[in-house]
């Protein structure tokens, strides 16, 4: 369980202390065990900053970030990140990339290979083990990224707009695949997205954030039955929640633009 209390983070300006930007302000929320939480909000709402704080990649200024009552001080074996731009090692083949996290943590060669092979199979990239990233499509590269994250068997999966760099068709396929995999290997997932459909389709709950500074506006329950798929998108509940999100987001954009004018 991820516990966030009163979390704030400020980014200092480059030339001095007076031009700092408050990225997130006094966030309070919890992510329950094995829950799929999607996070949505306009640009500038600090969702990526939030994810990186939880991943232990950047420090924060105020508040508490705890995982099962243990404060977060840096990256840990309990968490793994999936990056928007894949962040694959271009010189390593698929198998080596998948095993990367394991190798860093000192796993034996045989264990690395075995686990990597299993996961390559899980994400449907059998036969591509020796390929280089540049030989793969975007969707395939991201599947490698997902396999790499799963390989270290984390409790928590932190996904930073993982399908944002992909075209819509690939995105839909990967969403389906992600749901299938998650059904099999239940983990706590925090999934950042810009897409309302994605947020509702994937999440048990959707966390709506407002920008400048980033705050949690609301956490919405998504009482749709699992397993979810194409049909889920046609249900009235789905459409309602999606519309609700859009109304909120739209008004945030309008406010934002008025503020800028």
């Amino acid at each position, binding site marked *: 369980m991820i516990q966030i209390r009163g979390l704030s983070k400020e980014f200092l300006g480059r030339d001095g202390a007076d031009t700092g930007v408050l990225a997130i302000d006094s966030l309070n929320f919890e992510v329950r065990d094995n829950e799929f939480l999607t996070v949505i909000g306009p640009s500038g709402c600090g969702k990526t900053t939030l994810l990186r704080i939880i991943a232990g990649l950047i420090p924060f200024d105020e508040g508490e970030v705890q995982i099962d009552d243990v404060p977060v001080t840096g990256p840990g074996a309990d968490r*793994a990140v999936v990056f928007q731009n894949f*962040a694959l*090692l271009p010189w390593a083949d698929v198998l080596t990339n998948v095993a990367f996290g394991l190798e*860093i943590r000192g796993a034996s060669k045989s264990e690395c290979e075995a686990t990597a092979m299993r996961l390559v199979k899980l994400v449907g990239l059998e036969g591509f083990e020796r390929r280089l*990233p540049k030989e793969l499509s975007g969707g395939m590269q991201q599947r490698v990224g997902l396999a790499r994250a799963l390989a*270290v068997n984390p409790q928590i999966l932190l996904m930073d707009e993982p399908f944002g760099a992909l075209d819509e068709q690939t995105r839909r396929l990967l969403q389906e695949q992600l749901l299938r995999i998650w059904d099999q290997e239940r983990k706590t997932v925090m999934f950042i997205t810009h897409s309302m459909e994605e947020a509702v389709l994937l999440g048990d709950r959707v966390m709506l954030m407002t920008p400048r500074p980033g705050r949690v506006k609301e956490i919405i329950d998504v009482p749709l039955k699992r397993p979810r798929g194409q049909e889920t998108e046609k249900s009235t509940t789905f459409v309602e929640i999606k519309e609700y999100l859009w109304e909120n987001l739209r008004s945030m954009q309008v406010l934002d633009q008025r503020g800028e004018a």
Partner: protein
Amino acid sequence: MARVAVEAGKIEPVSMPLSLRQPFRDAWFELAALLGGVILWEVLGWSLAMPWLPPFSKILEALVQFVQSGVILGNVATSLEGLVIGFTISLFVGLFVGALMGRYRRVEKALDVYVNALLISPAMIFAPIFFAIFGLSGAVRIAVIVMYSLFVIIMNTATAIRNVDPALVEMASSFGANERQIFLRVLLPASLPLVFAGIRLGMGRAVKGMINAEMLIAMVGLGALAQRYGSQFEAAKVFAIALVVLIIALVGNWLVQAVENRLTRWAD
């Protein structure tokens, strides 16, 4: 796609005649252009009858004579020996210092002014200083070669490591990689393309340093030969020496390129 190199902090698309990466047709065209120049040279050489512009055939003749009489072998060997020693020193020191500068901001800021200054200074001006320190020994040659090639390697290596995609470093951090692991498993491989570009530039410069030093000391190597033939007004032989040095430069570049291709097959 053109490979880029950084020299004096700048980017350089490297081009060699008859580049190994160009499509066949272009290569033929360039060869034809060169041939055209050679023919022109031949004609001018015969018609103008200037002592300093021998016909190209005479130059080739001199070249063949060199190879046959074996007179050139000893000198080439001496020259190459100096080149290899000097370039190896530049390689080791350059990669090491460059890596430090690329990795640690403090080291970079402490040294960048000096590396840059030494990079843009005319390297040959240090020859009198090397004479004072090393006397009339072979070390002067080596020192000049190092002076010519070291700083471009440092500069490129530093830039290469500094410009590694930060997303990759962050990804490795997210999996808990420590400093050493990040350096060995991300920074080093990711910086190879640009580092190799610097090595290629360094090689080209090292060859120039080699010949310049040898001409100055005028005792051993191809440079000494060039001076001797020059003082004897044997223009064809001098040109032939220049050709030999050009070939050495091309071969050196080709070698580095071959290693580079092997190690950076993954880059586009």
